[in-house]
C-alpha cells in the first residue's frame, strides 16, 4: 500500500479559494484522507479528535497565523510530532527562520504547482 493511501493530511487556510487549491493539488497527488480547517483554532480542535500525519497551513490567517499554529502544535505533546508545511505568499526570511526555529518541516511558496507540492511533501514524509 502506497503512502498516499494511508497518509492523513490537514489543510488549514482561511481563504476558501486557496484552501480549495491546496486540496485540489492533494487530490491530484492521489492523497485521499484530507481534512481541513478554516483557522488555527479550528485546526487544533479537530486535530485533538482526529490526529493527522501532516498539516499544511497557510501563514497569513487572522487571529492565529500559521507560525502560531505551528508553535501550538509543537508545544503539545500529543501533536508535537505532526509534520508541518507552511504555505506562504511572501518570501520572507524572518518567517522561514522563525518557522525553522519552531520546527516546521518544510515550506511551500505560493503560487505552487502540483509537482512543487509533491516535492515539498515528499521531502517530509518520503515517496508518496
Amino acid at each position, binding site marked *: *500500500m*502506497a*503512502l498516499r*493511501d*494511508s*497518509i*492523513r493530511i490537514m489543510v488549514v487556510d482561511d481563504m476558501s479559494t486557496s484552501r480549495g487549491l491546496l486540496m485540489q493539488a492533494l487530490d491530484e497527488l492521489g492523497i485521499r484522507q484530507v481534512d481541513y480547517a478554516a483557522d488555527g483554532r479550528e485546526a487544533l480542535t479537530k486535530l485533538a479528535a482526529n*490526529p*493527522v*500525519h*501532516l498539516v499544511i497551513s497557510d501563514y497569513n490567517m487572522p487571529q492565529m497565523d500559521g507560525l502560531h499554529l505551528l508553535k501550538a502544535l509543537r508545544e503539545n505533546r500529543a501533536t508535537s*510530532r*505532526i*509534520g508541518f508545511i507552511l504555505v506562504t505568499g*511572501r*518570501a*520572507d*526570511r*524572518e518567517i*522561514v*527562520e522563525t*518557522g*525553522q526555529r519552531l*520546527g*516546521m*518541516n*518544510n*515550506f511551500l*511558496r505560493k503560487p505552487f504547482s502540483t509537482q512543487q507540492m509533491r516535492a*515539498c511533501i*515528499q*521531502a*517530509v*514524509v*518520503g*515517496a508518496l
Partner: protein
Amino acid sequence: MSGAPDIRTTFFQECDELLEALNDGLTSVQDQASGADADPEVMPAIFRAVHSIKGGAGAFGLNALVRFAHAFETVLDHLRSDRLSPTPELATLLFRAGDKLTDLVTAARDGQDDPDDPAAKALMGELAAASGAPPESDEDEAGGDEDFGFVPMGLPVNLPGSSPTRYRIAFSPSRRLYANGHDPLVLFEALGALGPLEVAVETGRLPDLGTLEPDENYIDWRLTLETEQGLDAIEEVFEFVEGLAEIEICAEDDLPEEEPDGGTDDGTDDGQDGGGEDTAKVDDAPPAAQPATPVPPAAAPAQPAAASPAARPPASAAAPAAPASAPPASATIRVDLERVDGLINAVGELVIHQAMIAQKLTEAGVAWNSDIGAGFDVFRNLTSEIQERVMAIRAQPIKPLFQRMARIVREAAAISGKTAQLRTEGEGTEVDKTVIERLAEPLTHILRNAVDHGLENAETRVAAGKKPTGLISLSATYRSGRVVIEVADDGAGINRERVRSIAVERGLIDPAAELSEGEIDKLLFMPGFSTASEVSDLSGRGVGMDVVKRAIQQIGGRISIHSAAGKGTTLSISLPLTLAVLDGILIELCGETMVIPITAVIETLRPQPGDIHAIGPEQSVVKVRDTVVPVVDLGQVFGLSGKSSGEILLLVETENRDRYALAVDAIRDQSQVVIKGLEGNYRHVAGISAATILGDGRIALIIDPEEAVSQAVPPPLAAAAAAAAAAATASSQPQAALSSVR
C-alpha cells in the same frame, strides 16, 4: 525563549554598558584612523559589544535589532581580522552605526522593533558596502527560489497507525569521540528512549597486544532499535558525534504486524530484510542534504506489533498481555516547580486557617464531641495528610547528589595522590529538593576535606596496619523527623595537638585554656580556621569548615564532628525534611508570643529559687544536674521591654553541642507552624530566622536559638562565664558543657 521580564531588564541594562564600551572603543578607532597607535584590545572589545547585543536581542526575538547588529558586526569582524583598516570615513560610519544601534536599543526597550526602519536599512546598506559584501537582498524582491538555507525536515512518524520500524545501526567511534567528552552509553540511552534497543559489541578490530595502541578505540557497536520514530529522531541522537564516528543506519521493512512474544528476542534476521532496506549514511554528508528516508505510516493494524521483549522496559515485560494500543502508563509526570510551590503555599495557608478555625470553635464553646467538633477533627486530619503529601512532592531521593560525590572523591584522591573509595548508604532517602540543592556545595567541601585532610597516604596507612585504600562512607538516614547525613573516613582522626596550636597561633583561644577533645574538634568550625599549613590545591581556596557550617545552618541543618585518633573522623549533618514547616514551641516572652524550633530544645526546666547563680551584673548560670549552663535572657536579646521572669528555662543545644538555658515567661503550646520568610518582607533580624501566623491570626517570630545566644553572649563574657562555671563546679566536673571559644 521569550525571557522573563527581569532578564529583559538585565538585557537593556547590559546594552547600556555595551553601548558605552562601544563608544569608548570607537573613539580609539577614530584616533587610530588619524594615525594613533593601534591598541590590539580595542577591536575585539568593540566586536564583542555589538555581538553581545545581537545575541541578547536574538533571545528576545528583536529581529530588527538583530539584523542591524549583524550588519554592524560584519564590518567590525573585518576590522578585527585586519581585512579592513580604519580610515576616518569608516570611523565616521561606525559612529553613525553606533548611534543607530543606540536608537534601536532604545526603541526596543519601548517595545518598538521595526524591521522597516528606512534609516536603519540605509545604514545597513552602507555597512555592507564597507565590508565589501552585497547589501542584504530585500526578501520581497528576491527570487522565488530563495530558500533562505531552509532544509526540509523529514517527519518522524509516530502517529497512531504507524508501526515500529527496526533499524540496524553500526557505530564505530573514533578515539576523538571520547576525547570530546562523548560517552557511547549516553547515546545508547538516548536511542533506548526511542524504543527497545539491543546493543552488541564487536571486538573484531582488536589487534594483537603487541600492536595495540592503548588510547585507540577498537570496539565497534552493533545496535538494533525498534522505534515508531523516524530516521530523523535517530540521526538527531548522533548529530553531535558526526565526523567523530562511523555511523551507518539501515531501516528494515515494516516489522511483521503480529509476532508472538519472544519470537525475536535473539535479534536475528526475520527474513524480511534485503528486499526493502533503506540506508542513510550520516558519516560525512550532512543528513539533511538528502531526502529523509520515508517510514511510511502503515495502515493501522488490528494488533500492533509486539516488540522484542529483551529490550523492553521492565514494566512492559511484566505485563506482556496489556493491550499495546494504549501506550504504557507513565509513572511520572513533569510539573513546573512553580506549581508545586504554589500548592505548598496554599497548603500553608490552609493549615493556618485551620488553626484559626480551631481557635474560633474553642472560643465559641463548641464541644469536640459535637457534630461540628467531630467534623472538624476529620477536616484537621485531612489537612495534615494533604500537607504531608504535598511536602512529599518536593522530596527527592538523595541518590544523584551521592553519585556526584563519588566523582568528587575520585577527583580529590587523584589530585592528592591518595587512593580512596566512597561507600554510600541510604541513597533512597528523600529530602526536600531545595535542601538537596543547597547541600551540594557544603557536602562537596566536606568530602574533599575528608580525602585531603582526613585520609593518610597509602604508606602511612599500611604502616598503621590499615588497608592502603582509604574508605569514606557517606550515608543518609531518617532520625526523629530529620535526615541525618554522615560522612565518615577511616583516616588518622583529628590531630588535636596541631589544631590546638594553630588555634593559639591564630589567637582563637587563650594558650592557657584547657579544652576537652570535643571542644578542640569544634575549633575546626571557627571562622578563619584552616589546618592546611599551606593552601592546598584541593580544599584550600580560603573556604573553611566555618563556611560549610554556615551553609548547613542556612538550610536549617546542624553539623557536628566526632573523631577518634587513628580510627577516623565522622561529620554528622542533621537536616530538616522540609523548609516549609517547623515543629515549634510557642513561648510567652514579655507579652509577646514567639516560636522556638522544637529540634533545638533538649528539655524544659522550672528552676527552683536556689538553682540560678549570678556571676556578674548581667550574667547568671543554672546548674542542670552535673553541668553548669549560662542563662540567656531572651527578652534582653530582642530588646523587649522588661526582663523575662525566667520562670521557665528552655535548655537548648547549639550545633557545637554547647548548652544554654533560654529564660522565658511561659510555654503556651507546641504546634507545627508554617514558615514565612521575614527577610523578603522586612529585613534580617539577628536571632530571628522567620515568622509564622498563629491560629488567632497574630504574627509570631521564630527564634534562631544559636544566633540568639550568640547575640547574648559575646565571646569575652562567655569566657568569663566559663571560668566562673569551672570555679563553681570545681574539680568534680571534668566535662563542663561550656565552650570557652564562643
